[in-house]
């Protein structure tokens, strides 16, 4: 491009200033990337929630159980294809900081309701043949350096005592966003060992519907079916369930948006000021360009291009560092000890980051660019 020398040379007219402005963009976009990672981790369940799945919990609270006998009654409701159930175990592995989700699953139905989790058949068969068998997510196995055949002691908090499990399978997700930090074991094992306390009870049900468009009707029918019973239900789509679950940690979305908005507004002021100074310093040069025959619109675009270029370089650096950080976390381990099960900067976030950066670049450069465009050549050339 024949104008590149003109744009680039102006960019590095004041090297320190340009570097600092690029640095502010880089820091802001790095922060944006980190906030997006945190938000993504909190909303992970929401992002990957199946559109054809409903979650049925006890109407009082999710920590209250439901009878296992609801299984067959649910299957009788028109529009429900499959039903599975799960139980939150809530145990501790070695240290309370080593948080990860442990769940007792219904072996017969779990895999068909959650097809996004992939486990080799031979491993599944090994799991099925071991009463104390467990299947763990690939990220979880990597985190604790677990291998097939390892014996893992988990200290119960809800269900007392130490529970020993044998790792018989390691599952992967079909997508990067799929949660591979869970620990599954047999519901039957839980029920047998806690027969006095937990016989015939499950934590919640997940049902798969024939048609996602039918979800609202099915959810309503489920709750009506069990109304006025000792175990009333509350049914929601998996997405809504995951959202309300994520909100238990507070309105992370609002928090992140607020921080992001403040950062970008500050950045807007800083960059706008920088560009205004840059234009003011070279009023004479811009006047010469106009005198030579460059149009007003060209001068406008020139200043805007500089502003956007600064933003783009800073944005690329910031997002690059954020991406690098997620790689390092994947390489060296999660510093949050499992509080953020997914540390992943998605391509969509990178694109969104660039879009925001470009927008800030344009807005910040607009006023200085307009003043450059409207510059009176004669007046500007008279200035010393």
């Amino acid at each position, binding site marked *: 491009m024949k104008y590149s020398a003109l744009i680039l*040379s102006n960019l590095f007219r004041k090297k320190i200033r340009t570097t600092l402005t690029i640095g502010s963009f880089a820091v802001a976009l790095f922060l944006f990337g980190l906030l997006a990672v945190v938000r993504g981790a909190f909303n992970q369940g929401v992002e990957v929630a199946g559109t054809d799945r409903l979650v049925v919990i006890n109407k009082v609270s999710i920590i209250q159980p439901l009878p296992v006998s609801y299984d067959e009654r649910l299957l009788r409701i028109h529009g429900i294809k499959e039903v599975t159930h799960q139980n939150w175990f809530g145990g501790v592995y070695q240290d309370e900081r080593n948080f990860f989700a442990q769940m007792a699953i219904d072996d017969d139905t779990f895999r068909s309701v959650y097809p996004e989790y992939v486990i080799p058949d031979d491993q599944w068969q090994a799991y099925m043949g071991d009463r104390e068998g467990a299947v763990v997510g690939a990220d979880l196995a990597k985190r604790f350096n677990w291998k097939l055949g390892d014996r893992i002691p988990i200290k119960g908090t809800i269900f007392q005592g130490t529970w020993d499990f044998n790792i018989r399978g390691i599952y992967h997700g079909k997508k990067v966003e799929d949660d591979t930090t869970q620990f599954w074991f047999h519901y039957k094992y839980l029920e047998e060992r806690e027969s006095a306390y937990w016989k015939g009870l499950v934590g919640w049900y997940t049902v798969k519907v024939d048609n996602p468009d039918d979800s609202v009707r099915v959810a309503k029918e489920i709750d009506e079916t069990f109304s006025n019973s000792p175990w009333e239900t509350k049914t929601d789509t998996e997405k809504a369930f995951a959202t309300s679950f994520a909100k238990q940690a507070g309105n992370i979305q609002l928090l992140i948006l607020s921080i992001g908005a403040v950062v970008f507004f500050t950045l807007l002021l800083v960059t706008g000021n920088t560009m205004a100074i840059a234009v003011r310093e070279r009023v004479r040069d811009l*006047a010469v360009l106009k005198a030579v025959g*460059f149009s007003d619109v060209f001068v406008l675009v020139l200043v805007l291009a500089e502003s956007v270029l600064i933003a783009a370089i800073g944005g690329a650096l910031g997002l690059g560092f954020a991406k690098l950080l997620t790689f390092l976390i994947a390489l060296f381990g999660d510093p949050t000890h499992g509080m953020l099960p997914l540390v992943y900067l998605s391509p969509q976030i990178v694109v969104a980051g660039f879009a925001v950066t470009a927008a800030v670049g344009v807005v910040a450069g607009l006023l200085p660019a307009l003043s450059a465009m409207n510059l009176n050549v004669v007046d500007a050339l008279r200035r010393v």
Partner: protein
Amino acid sequence: MVRVDGGGDGSSLVRVRGLDKKYQRGSEEIHVLQGLNLDVDKGDFVAFMGPSGSGKTTLLNLLGGLDLPTAGTITVAGDEITHLSGSKLTHWRARHVGFVFQMYNLIPVLTAFQNVELPLLLTKLSKAERRQHVEFALEVVGLKDRTHHYPRQLSGGQEQRVGIARAIVADPTFLLCDEPTGDLDRRSADEIMDLIDRLVREHKKTVLLVTHDPVAAERAHVVLHLNKGVLVEGQKADEKAGVRA
């Protein structure tokens, strides 16, 4: 032939009729140019002299399409520029006018080559053609060996030569020089005037020069004095070209 009586026959390269320029400064109205007439032929070298504030630079700005007159017309090579819109006037400037400024006005972050290349970026010339033109212009001003130097690495006289190369590189219809020696020592000023003189003689350029320097003005074919908003011929004019008033 240069005339200031409005009696040109219409074949002049530059034709000015009844040119008026007024400025409003607060409540005061300043009448800088008053019904000015001028005819300049192709290849003429005209120097404008006059006291500060007499309107020399204003006249040059009007002739170069940088400013608009309050009344009157300016016609250059058959195009009347006084009624052109802003964008058309910009386009016209790119094709017809080469500016040489007192303060050189080179862009400090561009090399001599890049500064001279600027007007050519507005043309459809290829990169190789632009290079050829720039090298030729720098050769004409004797700075082919300073192609990649930045303005800060050049002396004042050399900077002005680069400014002249920039003005001539696109082969404009005429050159407008606003005190091109005003910021130079005598020796550099003489070199610059030698160069301008050569552009007129060897390259048949039409040059309109504003200067305070009688020695510089001496090089012109015709010297015109601006006094109270009107042009009057100088002594030099009678001697060399015969101004008709």
